[in-house]
């Protein structure tokens, strides 16, 4: 699936909920399913700066795609859910597609306030880091 197909799929899933609290519940549940990073990837070099809660991101080139894995503090469940959505959309895609991705799903599922303001630094810098890794590895 392309990045946009994945985004559309997520938008459809979130369309099932009218209430913001139900959407948040869904994100939390996604966070619970996010597998923890192996210990050797839990290193400071992988820490995303600016997050109130700790988030680690590991980026690798696998064949001709970029592969991301991430983790967040176990108590920060909303962060974990947001992280898992970003991984789902951007991992295992071509570097140039990641670098140029327009992440419209964030707005469409009503998460922009979570992603851009409060977790501010946080999710925005995670996206930035994913994109710049992709950029470095783009053809």
């Amino acid at each position, binding site marked *: 699936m392309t990045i946009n197909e994945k985004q559309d799929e997520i938008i459809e899933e979130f369309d099932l909920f009218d209430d*913001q*609290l139900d959407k*948040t*519940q869904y994100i*939390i549940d996604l966070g619970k399913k996010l597998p923890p990073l192996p210990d050797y990837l839990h290193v400071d070099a992988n820490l995303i700066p600016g997050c*109130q*809660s700790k988030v680690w991101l590991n980026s690798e080139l696998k064949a001709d795609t970029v592969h991301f894995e991430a983790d967040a*503090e*176990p*108590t*920060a*469940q*909303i*962060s974990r859910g947001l992280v898992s959505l970003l991984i789902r959309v951007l991992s295992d895609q071509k570097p140039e597609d990641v670098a140029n991705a327009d992440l419209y799903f964030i707005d469409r599922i009503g998460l922009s306030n*979570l992603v851009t303001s*409060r*977790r501010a630094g946080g999710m925005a810098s995670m996206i930035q880091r994913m994109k710049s890794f992709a950029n470095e590895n783009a053809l």
Partner: protein
Amino acid sequence: MQTATYPTLDLAQIRADFPILDQLVNGRPLVYFDNAATTQKPRAVLDALAHYYEHDNANIHRGIHALAERATSAFEASRKAVQSFLNAREAEEIIFTYGTTDAINLVAKTYGRTFLGKGDEILISTMEHHSNIVPWQMLCEERGCVLKVIPINDEGELLLDEYEKLLTERTKIVSVVHVSNALGTINPVKYLIDKAHAVGAVVLIDGAQATTHIEIDVQALDCDFYVFSAHKLFGPTGMGVLYGKRALLETMPPWRGGGEMIKEVTFEKTTYNDIPYKFEAGTPNIADVIAVRNALEYVNTLGKDTIAAHEHELLTYATDALQTIDGLRIIGQAKEKVSVISFVLDGIHHEDTGVILDQQGIAVRTGHHCCQPLMRRLGIAGTTRASFSVYNTTDEIDRLVKGLQRVKTMMA
């Protein structure tokens, strides 16, 4: 303008005085529990701001026309209102600043730079807001002074024995918060002031969180400086007060230079104005200064005792109600507290708590509350803080409790 009187606290009437409270947030009636960050403004304050710009706007102290006269006398009437609110000896001891932060910086940059040197000590406490830490650190870097810190116990109270040990003849400034914004602790400031004076130190009290809850009498306290922000006292943002004893203010050089703060300017030499103008360079925030008087009148009309009694009831009610929640731990259990409750929920990040409460229309503050060293001392990353004001109700506290139950089920 007629001022309402409140023989007893009429909550419906009080809530009606604050138009902002009547709104839906995320589809639910707003519960505003972030009063320690800033309180909402009563209609009287909003009206005063509009009235000033609609009728009296003019630059002050310089004009000879009618508007300038009206603006100037309203501005100076506000100074007198603050004087009587703090029970200062003279109106000239009241300097308008743009907040607590600005007032502390003023003292550090003028008194501090003039009278402190290498090896002199500044004493603050573990529970200070960053605005009562950083200006002193900057002074220490500049002048080679040393910052010392009064420790606290696990309940969030100052260790007074340790305080006395830290006081020496090298202590030049003691700068302590009257009421902790993160924990609600009320510090025994009179005691701190007397002990500091005994070693010849001057004392600054950060009253940012105290003025709404506690009767302030700077003469009885005998503090050298007392600072607060109007916006935590139902007044406008970006507006605050430095009270200083005349004898000290007169020995302090001005900080910012410009209009208003001078007597005479020549290219060779400028002579400075008297206090308070010496410290009020440039055109001040006239409208907001004027509206502060309305905020103080609002408090005086309700009566501080009445406000305090209501807030105490809310604090007690909330403390009992929150303690019924499994896994909730109140941070800050001082014997003397204002209506601020900080807490952590076992296994749940405070940010998540804040987001989910917001989605239920409940505004709280989460994080370190500009008190990172305090959080470090307590061994936590941050807390969720609910802070209550005169317009809050026990029904709203019930909403908070339900909201937190919801947080817990969602996270389970």
